[in-house]
């Protein structure tokens, strides 16, 4: 099944750490450029938008782990927590950049934005929803919550949809970039709908022996 050469098990931990390190590079680099006055034009907005875009990218990557395994037999499950947490950190930084750098802690303006502007309301909702997922992204919580963990983490579907919508509604004209993320998220969510049927078909065709229950548990 596996198309790619298998990564030796002893490197798994290191590869996850590497993913975290690489994942923060866009934020660190952009912050450096912005803080030293090297981002052109509206530096704060550029930084804010970059953080939001990377949050969306990591959300898409998180949701892609399951279909990649289903379709190509490549198991990158070990990276999913890191990708999800990177998405959370970018959402958090996106919000902090908005609150601190952009609005300069003008709370009445921030509250008015959240209440009055649908795209900010949606973005804030996604931010609030991703917090419990980040807090329970540890082995202890998985053990402790059992099946409820799976249910809770299905929230990521809502978060990703809200994120893509937030992106599309934030711009004056929905362009190819917004369409790309809406399409990606829609396809990834659609996969969850057809997945059980696909796995059953695949099992009947290839004599795939693993139980659906086991794969579903991992999919979350």
């Amino acid at each position, binding site marked *: 099944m596996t198309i790619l050469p298998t990564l030796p098990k002893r490197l798994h931990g290191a590869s996850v750490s590497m993913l975290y390190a690489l994942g923060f590079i866009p934020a660190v680099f952009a912050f450096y450029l912005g803080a030293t006055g090297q981002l052109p*034009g509206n530096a704060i907005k550029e930084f804010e938008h970059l953080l939001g875009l990377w949050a969306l990218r990591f959300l898409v990557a998180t949701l892609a782990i399951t279909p990649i395994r289903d379709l190509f037999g490549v198991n990158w499950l070990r990276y999913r927590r890191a990708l999800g947490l990177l998405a959370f950190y970018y959402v958090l930084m996106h919000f902090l950049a908005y609150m601190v750098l952009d609005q300069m802690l003008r709370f009445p303006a921030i509250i008015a934005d959240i209440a009055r502007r649908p795209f900010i309301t949606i973005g804030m909702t996604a931010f609030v929803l991703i917090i419990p997922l980040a807090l329970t992204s540890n082995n202890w919580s998985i053990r402790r919550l059992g099946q409820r963990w799976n249910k809770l983490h299905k929230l990521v579907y809502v978060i990703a949809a809200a994120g893509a919508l937030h992106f599309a509604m934030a711009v004056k004209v929905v*362009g190819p970039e917004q369409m790309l993320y809406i399409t990606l998220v829609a396809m990834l969510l659609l996969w969850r709908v057809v997945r059980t049927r696909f796995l059953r078909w695949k099992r009947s065709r290839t004599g795939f022996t693993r139980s659906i229950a086991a794969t579903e548990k991992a999919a979350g």
Partner: protein
Amino acid sequence: MPSYRVPRIAASEITPERCFIDRRAFMAAAAGGLFLGGTTSGHAGPLKASASAYKLDEPMTPEKDVTSYNNFYEFGTGKGDPAANSGSFKPSPWTVKVDGLVGKPREFGLDELLAFPLEERSYRMRCVEAWSMVIPWIGFPLAALLDKVEPLGSAKYVAFETVVRPDEMPGQSGYFQPLEWPYREGLRLDEARHPLAILSVGLYGKTLPNQNGAPIRLVVPWKYGFKGIKSIVKISLTETPPPCTWNLTAPNEYGFYANVNPAVDHPRWSQATEIRVGEGGFFGSNRRDTLPFNGYADEVASLYAGMDLNANF
């Protein structure tokens, strides 16, 4: 072993940005066999103008920001797209056709436009996206051009159109086109005749760079930036309100008047405050209160006396 040191480069040896940005235009022209010994005036050249009384105490937005952070969807929707994608745009030769309800319809060539008495005027520019700049424009009052064509008594509005050149403006070709072309804008005739309204042909002492609307654009500093239509090829005087691109695209978001008004929010942005571009980087105190009519209320508020500015946003 001695460690390698990067040699210091004298400032005088660093290639000016304009030279290497020009390279793309040069290569395109050379490849097409159009190179005639001297690049076209696609990029800004020096332009003389007299000083004017229109000055501001506020610091100018650096030229780098004015010419690299633009909304000009004909070249793409990203802020950096106009500077990156306008290299092959040819702002010369150029004519502006003025017609409609006028006594003397005619065309103005670029040299005729540049022959108007040019002044340097520093204006605040407030984008509807809640950012702003201070820009030293070079231009002449729109009224001076209107006088030459003698508007008829029936003329009530002025309509403007941007050039359509899909071959030179990548935003105007392909599958995804953000707006309907040509980009159109309009003013009431009394707004158009207001002394603050100018046709700009330059900034920072040079002719307009392509990304800023070369060779001629409208500047109405008390209105949101999208009213400042760029690369104008047609001006028509009309009796009825002319169609305006953003107003047609989203009438609930962009009104015909589009006067800067901190009390009337855009659905997606509060208009109460603005970020001044190129000031303070990340940590300067660069969010400031937006002023009614962008700080030009004393001059222009009387144009709207008795009007409900909430309804006529």
